């Protein structure tokens, strides 16, 4: 029997990753450079909000205190969020958004493929469903990274700058703490560090095709597994949670 608290934390982490990046991408709505990209980014966002809903609903059931997915999304404080820092970074320019999407979606393809074999049936089901969606996200991001990297001088500069700026947030994706260790033993979670070689190989191939330099691994940002975030998450939450904070339990 898995320690329910570990499972709860793990589900929050998976759910928060989807929720926070979903919110970020939704900020592109009506602001993308092309209408097709407006549709693409908001469609990504929609997939992620669906994933967050499923995972946080299950987290609430595992916790057993009667909290719904909405309670978990709208009524937790910043330090109780466990999303990777890369998810909360501001969108930057279009190159930054697409570079992040490539790095994240490539990781998620590997993660959800592995989690589709989780011994936890609900996680396995959500993972199998999600895998189809994240493959589509990855394909789209890959196209843009290549098109912009191997594009004009300006698009190349912007894409290389984005990849360089994002790189120090990629180490955290592969970290593991005691929650992971316990759930890996139970066959529920995946050893994320074991996904790293495949991720690096794939990212290396795409960046090379895009005529971009693969940044050297240096200092890596960390903190999310302890609920420690960049200054950006608080601002996201102040907007996302505004209504439920101002009018608790409001419905319409």
């Amino acid at each position, binding site marked *: 029997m898995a320690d329910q608290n570990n499972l709860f934390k793990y589900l929050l982490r998976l759910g928060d990753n989807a929720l926070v990046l979903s919110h970020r991408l939704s900020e592109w709505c009506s602001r993308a450079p092309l*209408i*097709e990209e407006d*549709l*693409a980014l908001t*469609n990504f966002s*929609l*997939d*992620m*909000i*669906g*994933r967050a*809903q*499923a995972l946080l609903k299950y987290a609430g059931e595992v916790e057993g205190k009667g909290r719904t997915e909405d309670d978990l999304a709208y009524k937790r404080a910043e330090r109780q969020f466990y999303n990777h820092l890369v998810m909360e970074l501001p969108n930057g320019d279009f190159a930054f958004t697409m570079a992040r999407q490539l790095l994240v979606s490539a990781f998620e393809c590997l993660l959800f493929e592995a989690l589709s074999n989780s011994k936890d*049936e*609900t996680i*396995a*089901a*959500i993972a*199998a*469903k*999600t895998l*189809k*969606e994240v*493959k*589509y996200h*990855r*394909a*789209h991001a890959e196209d843009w990274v290549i098109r912009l990297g191997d594009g004009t001088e300006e698009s190349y500069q912007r894409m290389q700058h984005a990849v360089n700026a994002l790189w120090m947030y990629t180490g955290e994706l592969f970290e593991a703490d005691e929650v992971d260790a316990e759930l890996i033993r139970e066959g529920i979670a995946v050893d994320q560090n074991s996904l790293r070689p495949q991720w690096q190989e794939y990212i290396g191939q795409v960046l090379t095709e895009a005529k971009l330099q693969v940044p050297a691994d240096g200092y890596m940002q960390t903190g999310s597994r302890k609920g420690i975030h960049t200054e950006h998450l608080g601002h996201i939450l102040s907007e996302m949670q505004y209504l439920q904070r101002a009018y608790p339990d409001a419905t319409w």
Partner: protein
Amino acid sequence: MVTTAYTREEIMGYLSEIADPEIPVLTIEEIGMLRDVLITEKGYEIILTPTYTGCPAMGIIEEDIERLLAEKGVGPVTVKLVYAPAWTTDWITDAAKEKMRKYGISPPEHSSCSQAFSVGSSVSCPKCGSADTQLVSRFGATACKALYKCNSCKEPFEHFKCH
């Protein structure tokens, strides 16, 4: 308590009338979202699976189910979302695909879902049938569709993505 007894087939029969809010020529049964009806001591449990996890039509469909069954005097009803097995366009019947095509949406191909997105796939125009078509946008008005245009008759159209 269940006051009037209905069979699983009767309930499935009622529910098979409910149209997909996004593609009203198809029902939730034809598209593969209606999975099962379980009859327990607590009442009727309707098992649905979403096409895409974030599909906003799910809420509307749940309400449609509850309203329809309430009108028929069926109760108590609960609607349960399941994710496994994951929905696939392979569950859409050929007859439903033909309806979709007549409605102006190019239907998904069979059993090609292992490819997340294949640019070389042959999407044919729902108006003139030409295979000379071009992808305009991978994403359309709903999560399940992409935008194409026909190079023969110049008609822009939606393609229900293989999933």
